[in-house]
């Protein structure tokens, strides 16, 4: 599903954020991405979501070389991905419901379908009672869960998460991880960047470790 072939990424500033990364995540697989602050985890995820482009090497998603994706088809590709960002990326002038509904509205779902799915997604992250509130009136962890709900509402084929439990307490973190595992159970490919080593040690999944932009260990379970 995700194939990194000798990928390097150098930012205009001069940093080599990723150097010669080779890595394959099969369809339906789930993996954790770890590494120190600034190791290149977010950069790796951004390459998959086409927020950044590689400097050298190829990224191939579902058989599609991302070099060949044009500006015009990019939106349709992104609709296949549920992305949870390190900084949430919510719209602060829309309600929680509207935020979560956005990916469905963009894809042209009917209002009835939108309502049903948004409620289901909010229920999964435990925020159904907040659907009419605005993001600013939520706590940090609650906002993080809204962004999780938005990422999964569309039932994407690929789920990318950058530090999805950074602002959650240990109990809730486990709950959210279980949610991701449940998605993985029904065939969704999942890749999660995280610092929460104790938590993922329990979960018996593959761990990809980055250090200064280089893929050091690929622990297979």
């Amino acid at each position: 599903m995700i194939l990194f072939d000798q990928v390097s990424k150098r930012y205009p500033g001069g940093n080599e954020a990723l150097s010669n990364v080779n890595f394959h995540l099969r369809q339906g697989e789930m993996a954790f991405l770890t590494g120190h602050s600034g190791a290149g985890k977010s950069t790796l995820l951004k390459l998959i979501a086409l927020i950044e482009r590689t400097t050298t090497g190829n990224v191939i998603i579902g058989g599609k070389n991302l070099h060949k994706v044009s500006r015009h088809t990019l939106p349709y590709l992104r609709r296949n991905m549920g992305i949870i960002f390190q900084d949430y990326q919510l719209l602060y002038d829309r309600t929680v419901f509207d935020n979560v509904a956005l990916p469905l509205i963009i894809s042209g779902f009917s209002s009835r379908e939108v309502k049903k799915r948004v409620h289901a997604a909010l229920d999964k992250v435990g925020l159904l009672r907040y659907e009419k509130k605005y993001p600013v009136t939520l706590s940090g962890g609650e906002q993080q869960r809204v962004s999780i709900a938005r990422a999964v509402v569309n039932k994407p084929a690929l789920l990318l998460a950058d530090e999805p439990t950074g602002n959650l307490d240990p109990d809730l973190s486990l709950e959210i991880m279980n949610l991701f595992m449940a998605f993985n159970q029904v065939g969704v490919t999942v890749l999660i960047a995280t610092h929460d080593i104790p938590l993922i040690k329990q979960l018996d999944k593959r761990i990809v470790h980055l250090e200064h932009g280089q893929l050091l260990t690929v622990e297979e379970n």
Partner: protein
Amino acid sequence: MAGQSSGTESQVQLRQLRPSFSSRFKEFFIRHLQVFFYSLGLLSRTPFSTLLTAASLGIALALPAGLYVILDHAKQLSGDFDSINQISLFMKQDVSTQAIERLQKKLNAWPEIAQVKHIDRAAALKEFQENSGFGDALKALKANPLPHLLIVYPSLTHNEPEQINRLLADLKKLPEVDLVQLDIQWLQRLYAIIHIAQRGIFIIGALLALAVLLIIGNTIRLAIENRRSEIVVMKLIGATDSFIRRPFLYTGFWYGLFGSLIAILLVNLSLLMISNPLTHLSSLYNNSKLFSLGLMGVNTSLTLLVSGCVLGWLGARMAVGRHLKEIEPK
């Protein structure tokens, strides 16, 4: 449709989430209607700033519209003004009254001439005595020294300076005519003034049209800048450019609409404010309707409304087009 497949299948494939044509068509109008009212709702959430923007647009639109109203009226008016042009034909002393009446008929048939008036020698002396200011002095005259007089009014379609000059030449060739006179200077001055006014109005109009585009474009640009993070988020979750663009275009439309409504209000208020002195001026020309402008006509108002909306939409289109590509998630 794609995306509605149930979550129970064991393998989820990458899908081309481009909706089918029929569903797109079905949802098309609903979506547009939603955005139409959504963008109105956004504006109404900040009524003060919406009003500010619409007011600046209104002023910018009001000025060319007001100029147009006045110019339009001036065109009709020029007909009345041109009747000031009159050519006096002084007959030779020995031409008989019958010959003059024949000449009057003949001239009346010329296409260049709207009307010919005959002023009898005796009547002319009387008028001259009354109006020249030499009244008493001329009463001393024994014989009438005045010739017969024909006053020629050129037709409205022939009152350009060169046409008048040609007419004058033709009239001079008539055997019965002793002298042809026209206050050509007055005409030249009038045309020079009109020329300046036209150029001035052209300059002001061009500047103001530019101002409208600038103001709308600028407003939309700042609105986009303001919603930069929203655009980024939209792009991140897979919105197409046209989807992102739509609310901005409707916002431009609404600004244009409100702006032109304010412009109509301003123009009519201004027209009311100058109607009093205009009536006074008209009465000095013994024609109370001469300069009266009235209010803006329905057609002009509609034109203004439509062009306001179109300008708003266009300004938004330009601003969005320029900026949408620049704003990319990082």
